[in-house]
Structures are given as C-alpha cells and as structure tokens.
C-alpha cells in the first residue's frame, strides 16, 4: 500500500516536469517577440537588448528553461508585465477566491448529484428515473457560461434577488455568499450531472446483487439496502468528486468571466487580454500543479478505501 503511494508520488514528478515544459513553451508559442509586449513602441535597440538580458531571453532555450524552473520551484513566478507586481501574489489571492467557489460548487454538486443518482436508481425505469437521468444529461451538455448568463437573466435582471457581478468587497459574509450563489450554481451543473450518473450506475450494480435482491424481495430492511448501496457506491463517487473538484478549478475560467468573480479564471482572462504572459504562465502552472496533486490525493484516498486497487 505505502509502496503504491510512493510509486504514485514518484510518477507525478515527470508529469509535473512535463507540464512545466508546456507552460514554459507557451512564451515561445506566442506570436511575435515576447519582449514587444513589455516595451514601449519607440524603445531603442539598446533598451530592448537590456530588457532581453534582464529576462534572460538571450540565452539558449534549455538554459532559460532550467533557470526559469529553478525560480519557479522557489515560488518566484516572475513579475506581471501589466502591473509589475509579483505574479505569485496575484495568483495567491485569485486562487483563494477560486478555491472557495470550487469548494462550494463541488459541495452542491455532491449533495444534489448523490440525491439525484440514488433517486434514479431506486426508481429505476420509472418517471422519476427518467427525469433524474434527463437532468444528468442536461448537466453534462450545458455550456456553463451560458447557464451563468441565464441565471443572471433570471435572478438578477428579472427577479433582482441576487447580484450579478463580482465578489463583495467589504459587505461581510452574507454579502459574499450572495455574490457566490449564482456562480456556484452555474459551476455545479457539470459535476452534478457526472456524479448523478456515476452514483446511479454504481447503485444499480449493487441493487442487482443477489442478496440485495433477496432483501428487497422480503420487503424488509429498506435501511440496510440503502446503507449497503451508499457504502458500495462511495469509492467511485469520491473519485469522481475529487476529479471534478480539479476540473472546477480549471473549468471555472469561463464562469468567472461571466460573473467577474475575482478568481484564477478571471486573472487568466485578464492576462490573455493584456498579453501578460508571465501571469498567464503563473496561473496555469499553479492550477496544473494543483490538479496533479489532487489527482494524486484521489488515487491515494482510493487505495485506502479499496486496497485492491494498489495491487492492480
């Protein structure tokens, strides 16, 4: 078991290094000179050279990469071209906001998804199952940025119940929660659909087992059947939830753009428009690292829940 955990940890390292190469390469994917964005149009040749040197752009690529990597692992993600602030600071603040949003939407998706999935499984083939399955398909098919706009139209524009934009700057907890409500719902739709599907099929598998059939046939022990189903569907559900939490972090870009929620997605969006490559790199690198570590955590958790996996 611990060997498996160790093995997964070691295997995550090349993945992270590979991810860092991709992120590093982004600067060079960008059309035009990366310097051009930093410099005023009328800068002299000497000025350009000086800046190039300062950024290390005059060295061969592998050297640039290693130097960059060396700085990155110590937490130095460079300076924003637009604001001149250290990228790590911006990313840290944004990440906090994004984590809050990802957590709340995951929680919502988890609760609603499980309820929906179980409901569908216990009422298999009946109207309620069809409705629940329908909601699940809608959840995975809906463009969540559009769902966000629809929510704004309904709850902000028409009903005027909830704010449409931003996070509360100084309004306290209640205000913050009110700002969070709509983006949370929009972001919860996809994992809700996914979790509901997984729970439904896992529960159906359990319900098809013979002794469960026997229990049900006796009409007794509703509670026992229920606990059994929940227990057996748990490992898969937790895996999905963990993975979805990661997707929430990365996938929130579009929803954050819709709601101007000051998270990583919003920062990314801003960086794209200002062609602020250091910020772009910083955000993506931090999110990817987070995502890889989260996957790792899910894997490890899973081996504790179901030790058979480690032997596989």
């Amino acid at each position, binding site marked *: 078991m611990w060997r498996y955990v160790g093995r997964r940890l070691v295997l995550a390292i090349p993945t992270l290094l*590979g991810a860092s190469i991709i992120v590093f390469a982004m600067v060079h994917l960008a059309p035009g000179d990366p310097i051009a964005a930093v410099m005023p149009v009328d800068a002299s040749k000497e000025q350009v050279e000086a800046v190039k040197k300062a950024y290390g752009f005059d060295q061969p690529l592998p050297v640039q990469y290693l130097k960059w990597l060396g700085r990155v692992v110590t937490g130095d993600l460079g300076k924003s071209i637009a604001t001149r602030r250290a990228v790590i600071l911006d990313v840290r603040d944004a990440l906090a906001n994004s984590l809050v949003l990802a957590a709340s939407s995951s929680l919502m998706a988890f609760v609603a998804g499980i309820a929906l999935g179980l409901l569908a499984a216990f009422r298999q083939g009946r109207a309620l199952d069809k409705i629940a399955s329908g909601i699940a398909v809608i959840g995975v098919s809906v*463009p969540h940025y559009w769902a966000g706009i629809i929510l704004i139209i309904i709850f902000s524009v028409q009903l005027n119940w909830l704010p449409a934009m931003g996070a509360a700057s100084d309004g306290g907890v209640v205000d913050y929660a009110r700002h969070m409500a709509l983006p949370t719902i929009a972001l919860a739709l996809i994992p809700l659909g996914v979790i509901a599907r997984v729970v439904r099929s896992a529960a159906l598998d359990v319900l098809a087992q013979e002794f469960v059939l026997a229990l049900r046939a006796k009409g007794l022990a509703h509670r026992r059947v229920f606990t059994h189903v929940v227990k057996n569907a748990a490992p898969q559900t937790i895996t999905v939830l963990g993975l979805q939490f990661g*997707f929430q972090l990365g*996938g929130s*870009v579009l929803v954050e753009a819709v709601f101007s929620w000051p998270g990583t997605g919003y920062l990314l969006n801003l960086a794209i*428009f200002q062609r602020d490559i250091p910020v772009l790199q910083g955000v993506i690198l931090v999110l990817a690292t987070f995502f*890889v570590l989260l996957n790792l955590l899910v894997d490890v958790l899973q081996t504790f829940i179901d030790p058979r996996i480690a032997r596989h």
Partner: protein
Amino acid sequence: MSVVALPQEVSTVAGAPMSYWRTVAWRLARDRATLVAGAILLLIAVSALLAPWIAPHDPNAGSIRLRLAPIGGATHPLGTDEQGRDMLSRLLWGGRMTLVAGLTPVVVAFLVGTVLGVIAGYAGGLTNTLVMRTMDVFYAFPAVLLAIAISGALGPGLPNTLISLSIVFIPRVVRVAESATVQVKGLEFVAAARASGAGVWPILRHHLLANILGPVLVFASTQVSLSIILAAGLSFLGLGVTPPAAEWGLMLNTLRQSIYVNAIVPALPGLAIFVTSMAFNLVSDGLRDAMEIRS
C-alpha cells in the same frame, strides 16, 4: 477497462446471419431517444450547411435603429442583435462556424490519436512508454484550462482554436486507442494471424483496426459535445473566431451586455450550443449502448 466488446450472443432477426454493424444498426433503429437526437442533429447540420441559401438576411448587415428587436417579428423572426443584425441569419451562419470549430478538432484527434495509440499499443516497450508518458503530461491540465492556455498563448483566430482543441483531444483518443490495441493484440486471433505467417500490415488492417475502430469512434463521438462547448467557449472569451464573423460563442459574448434590454435574444446563441451539444451527447450514448461498449 474493457473497451472492446466481443459480441457473445446477439439476438438476430429470424436467425439470419447478421454482421456486427447490421446488429448495431438494428438496435439503433429501436432506440427512440437516439433517433430523435439524431434527427435534431441532422436538422442543425443541414440548416448550417444551407445557411447561404436559406438565411433570410445578410448576417453582417444591420442598422443601429433596429437594435435588439424582440423575437416574433415579421422580418426578423428571432429578433436582432445589439448591432441590429438579423438573429436567425446569424444563428444559421454561426452554426457553420461552431460546428466546424467543434468537429474539426475531434476528427483531427481521432485520426492522429488512433495512429499514435495503435503504434504505442502494438509496438509496446519503449515506444509505448514514450508516447503514453507524453500524453500523460497533457492530463496534468483540465481540458478547459489546456485549451485556454494554448489559445491564450497562440492568440485569437479560428486556426488557433482548432490547433489548441486538437491538442486537448489527441491525448484522450490516444489513451483509448492504446488500451483497445493492447487488449485486442493479446487475443488469440491475432496470434493465429501471426501463426499463419501474416505480417504487421495485414494484421493491423484486418484484425486490429477492424476491432478497435468502433470503440475509438464512439469515444470520439462522446467528445464532440465537449469540443463544441469549448470551441464556443474560446470565442466567448474572445480567443476564437474574430468579429464580425457569426459564431455562437462570440454572439453570446457580444450580446451578453444587452440582457438588461432584451432578456430573450441574448440567450439564443447559448441555447443553440446547448441543444447541439446535448444532441451529440444523446447520439453518442445511444451509439455506445448499441455497440455494447462499456467505459
């Protein structure tokens, strides 16, 4: 994971011999949800294809005086956008763009990914490790993030959207194709073909591809919906198709400011994305069931 379904007993029509594909077609013909979704897809595809002939107006011509006309009007049945351009015409033209931007990456990923996956799976050893570990790296990013990262670096425009989305989907196809290849390669009929003296190419063509193409194709079809959402999403962020071209995600973005004036018209492009993506999901689900592929 068992990707490849080897049909054991299939109910056949009146005992007549039936090929696998005929059995699949026979099952699909009985699946009402899939048929309806397929019909909707066909309608969307045909109307997008025929946009130049059936669109009532020039999608790029509008007048400020006609801004945000409500739906239901005689000349503009679906209203007009924030620049007074006919929504119906723009939705028809936009469908072309969105479908191209959403389908092309999946097709590219299907072709490239199948080739890479089959090579990795059949060759095994170092080749396999090299290909698969490289693919793993792309799994370090959630799909949306990877698409935005690459598009963000490359800059806006349809070609860049296609490139970045292809990069998102290739590793996924490679994984499925590789695991299917490894699975089929280990079956005895492949060994039997080798024992008959068959070389690599006949085996790949007649034995491997014939058995893995179905599952890989179905997998690719499940990705179309996501690809469409992402393609439109990139335009929505201003990273995809550039104005004034009509594209659903871009239309959604520019109309977004107008929700306080007209709540219905700005929702239409998103509705179009939603319906298309859902139809693709339903069709690929039905296909998967009909082909007995479990994921």
